């Protein structure tokens, strides 16, 4: 097998990401030497676990990007799978709902990503909101159990919407036909970079300057200072990446701001869902981060919004 050739732009972008990670690792190392309090040491330990996990996650994404559309779609399908598993594990589904859950995992998840693969855009935006929405309660009702029926149906539909429908809009960016010779893979890079940097920078700014809590009962770590500082910084990074997108610098900044805002509310809403289920993390898959859905919560809200904004304003 021959390795695909890597475009200079992609080399530059991943070079930048690696430099950033190396810098973060260095900071983590120095902080580990420097911090003395028990509380501070715990924070640094968590920080270093997070950075280590970032190396792995970046490596996985770099490989997928390198091998192109097929592998990227498979990667996101796997991410959806793990997120759906985490969501339904934490959600108290009823044993009688075995059939709708099986349909969610074995029918709608593969079908949705197959639609992305064959580029059937009109269907991928209605499969889950329309067809799954209608079919899943039918499968449930045939079991004849009415206890809690609305809540039971809503749980499975929410799980599927967030973890499969929403997340699949990230690789669906690859389907967009852009003006000029712009490649959609860079839009995916733009989305993931801005969303994840926004999370990281809000976390850092919150740790450094955070005082006023935005929603203490929902997500105690989110502060006004963290949101504004981290959000503005991520927006600036997005603006600086305008040259890989079809946007002007100002458009890139607006897109990044929309991603930051959607990502923030995605994190907040999913945190509320998580807490209503009595949990702090969605899972234990990624050390320092929690579960896969803890890392993807902002993507669930940002991906569909970004997809439709690009489709509306830029796509041919």
């Amino acid at each position, binding site marked *: 097998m021959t390795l695909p050739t890597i475009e200079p732009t992609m080399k530059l972008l991943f070079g930048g990401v690696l430099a950033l990670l190396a810098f973060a690792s260095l900071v983590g190392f120095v902080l580990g030497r420097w911090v003395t309090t028990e509380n501070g040491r715990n924070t640094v330990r968590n920080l270093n676990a997070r950075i280590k996990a970032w190396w792995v996650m970046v490596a996985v994404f770099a490989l997928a990007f390198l091998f192109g559309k097929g592998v990227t779609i498979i990667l996101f399908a796997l991410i959806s*799978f793990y997120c759906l*598993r*985490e969501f339904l*594990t934490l959600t108290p*589904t*009823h*044993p009688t709902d075995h059939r709708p*859950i*099986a349909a969610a995992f074995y029918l709608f998840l593969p079908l949705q990503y197959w639609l992305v693969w064959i580029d059937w855009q009109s269907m991928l935006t209605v499969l889950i909101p329309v067809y799954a929405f209608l079919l899943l309660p039918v499968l449930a009702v045939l079991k004849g159990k009415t206890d809690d029926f609305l809540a039971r149906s809503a749980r499975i539909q929410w799980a599927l919407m967030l973890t499969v429908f929403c997340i699949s809009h990230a690789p669906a960016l690859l389907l967009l036909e852009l003006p000029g010779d712009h490649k959609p893979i860079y839009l995916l890079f733009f989305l993931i970079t801005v969303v994840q940097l926004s999370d990281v920078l809000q976390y850092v700014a919150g740790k450094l300057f955070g005082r006023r809590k935005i929603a203490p009962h929902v997500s105690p770590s989110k502060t006004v200072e963290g949101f504004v500082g981290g959000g503005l910084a991520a927006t600036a990074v997005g603006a600086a990446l305008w040259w890989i997108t079809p946007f002007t610098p100002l458009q890139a900044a607006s897109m990044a701001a929309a991603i930051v805002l959607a990502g923030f509310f995605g994190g907040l809403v999913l945190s509320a869902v998580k807490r209503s289920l009595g949990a702090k993390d969605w*899972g234990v898959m990624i050390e320092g981060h929690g579960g896969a859905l803890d890392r993807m919560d902002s993507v669930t809200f940002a991906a569909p919004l970004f997809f439709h904004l690009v489709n509306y304003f830029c796509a041919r």
Partner: protein
Amino acid sequence: MIAALLIGLTRFLVGGSGQWLGCAPSARQRIYFANHSSHLDTLILWAAMPPDLRRRVRPVAAADYWGKGAVQRHIALKVLNAVLIERNARGSDPLEPLRDALAAGDSLIIFPEGTRAFERLPGAFKPGLYHLARAFPEAELVPVFLDNLRRALPKGSFFPVPISCIARFGCPMQLEPGEAKPAFLERARAAVVEMA
């Protein structure tokens, strides 16, 4: 080879992580007893054991299910190293193969309810556990609660859905001197329920 494949598939679909809350994994002789809600129970408990213990910790499985087809039989006997018992044995003592395994120094995994429950919490325990505890007083009795299995593969379904299952291991207990059978069985059941 098949074992690695089975572990991989189990982890991918239904998790099967172990939480050792009341004791650490140990090579000493134990009788693990757990609630029974799904055909996955045996597999999950086996997957939750550290690899070096798997050979010597033998699940007790019903011959009428695990001994049926060639594939199931092969997995039960060759991979899980299970002890098969006849649930409806007439005349012979169904506990006989269990006593043999314990006498040989192996540990066991048993499901004292005897049959899969519909509810989340276990039903009444059958007396098998009591008889084994009396015959092998040196074996530690470890309660286990298996969570989420009735959602991953409920009774009456034919294939599992990907919901992560967990095995929670509690504090080891022993049959007290002079403890009556019903009192002991109820105490053992309560030890499993405590971790629910």
